[in-house]
């Protein structure tokens, strides 16, 4: 059904540009604003072009897992809110939103961006769970990169609420920031025909054969990867895509600023 659209997108790419005039390795304008939600312990509003989403951090205390009694943990949720696109319906999370949540989670978890031991309050009894919720306001493509940027920006903005040993007082935040040591940043590369594009718009996402999301840390090491879509990648494809994504994450990281 999308054959005509794909053919025409490829014709445009042959001439060296995309439907919206960008080059294949060009991101739309990125903006990051933190501290936008007063009821959250940390928050960030991210826009990439007209893709717009809000991430908020809430903290809870519970018993650590038996196999890691001295560690807290994180939880990541992504809401494809029905206001953001005519294709999103109210109801339980779709598999697409779950995929984004899990890839963002792995980027933060595997990079050891937060030392989970620092989230422990009393070994075996109490530890912090940092819950990152990302809600889409407007979907204009590339939700993956926007979500991961918002998650890390919100984490860096977050502070622990007061805890007196018995109950959390969410109305008062302490000065103690949530311990974020590294900032994993993700970039997604699409393969359409022989072309590799970053920061796709919905038309490009609809005709892409496959996507590769790569997360990197400040030192350039990769800390998460995900191939999405039902197409295949050759080793040459992977080399090019990883190279391109890693370069782009450096540019995106500059938007984090602050801490």
């Amino acid at each position: 059904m999308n054959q005509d659209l794909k053919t025409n997108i490829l014709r445009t790419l042959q001439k060296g540009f995309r439907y919206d005039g960008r080059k294949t390795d060009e991101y739309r304008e990125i903006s990051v604003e933190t501290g936008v939600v007063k009821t959250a312990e940390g928050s960030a509003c991210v826009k990439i072009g007209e893709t717009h989403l809000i991430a908020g951090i809430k903290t809870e205390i519970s018993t650590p897992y038996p196999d890691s009694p001295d560690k807290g943990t994180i939880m990541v949720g992504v809401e494809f809110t029905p206001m953001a696109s005519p294709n999103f319906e109210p109801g339980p999370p779709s598999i697409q939103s779950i995929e984004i949540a899990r890839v963002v989670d792995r980027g933060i978890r595997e990079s050891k961006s937060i030392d989970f031991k620092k989230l422990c309050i009393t070994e075996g009894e109490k530890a912090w769970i940092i819950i990152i919720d990302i809600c889409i306001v407007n979907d204009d493509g590339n939700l993956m990169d926007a979500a991961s940027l918002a998650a890390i920006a919100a984490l860096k903005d977050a502070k622990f609420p007061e805890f007196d040993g018995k109950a959390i007082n969410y109305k008062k935040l302490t000065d103690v920031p949530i311990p974020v040591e590294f900032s994993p940043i993700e970039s997604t590369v699409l393969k359409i025909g022989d072309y590799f594009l970053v920061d796709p718009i919905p038309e490009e996402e609809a005709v892409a054969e496959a996507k590769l999301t790569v997360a990197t840390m400040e030192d350039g090491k990769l800390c998460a990867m995900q191939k999405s879509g039902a197409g295949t990648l050759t080793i040459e494809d992977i080399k090019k895509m990883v190279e391109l994504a890693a370069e782009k994450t450096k540019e995106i990281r500059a938007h984090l600023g602050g801490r």
Partner: protein
Amino acid sequence: MSELLIKDKEIVVPGEELAVGMDFLPSYGTYRRGDKIISNMVGLVHIEGKVVKLIPLSGKYAPKKEDTIIGQVIDVAMSGWRIETNCAYSAMVSLKDATSDFIARGADLTQYFDIGDWVVAKIINVTSQKLVDMTMKGPGLRKLKGGRVTRINTNKVPRVIGKAGSMVTMIKVSTDTKIIVGQNGVVWIQGEPEMESIAVDAIKMIENQSHVSGLTDKVKEFLEKATGKKIEMPEYNR
């Protein structure tokens, strides 16, 4: 005593009082309440003598008999094809209205139009329940091949077409593209990829600035700059 409370070409929102007094007549987009005429939607005020009406600035397409629209085939049934029309109501093109060719019983209908094809069709009937019938028999009505489709707000279609087609012709001539503007806001453009992109940008510019004065000159300037060549309109269109 009758009195106008707003000026021509002002932007008004639902619930705004436009005129007071029984001399004025409420027309499209307005209603009367007591002795006042009140706006019913977001629109541009248009006053013609004593008639007060609105030109809507937003809103989805409402299918009308005789409209030529561009839609996409979403289903192929025994009796014909179902077309998505860029609004809440899809339309049917039945076998007898599809083509002048003879369609044999049991023929494979996807040979004519398949799911995903873009077509130009004309609305022949709309029932009170908004069931829509269309025909593809007629000049200019056909399946579209290649090219690129963009959507604009249906209320902007007249501006994009222009007086006697002058605006859309200017874009066609400047970018050397074929352009068909459906009344339902779906626009089809075909030409060289760079030119298609420029045409889309010009159309979006008209959509965004539809009520700005001097728009035709602004669009001409944009097109000449983007294509790098001056526009020479064919004599009959001047």
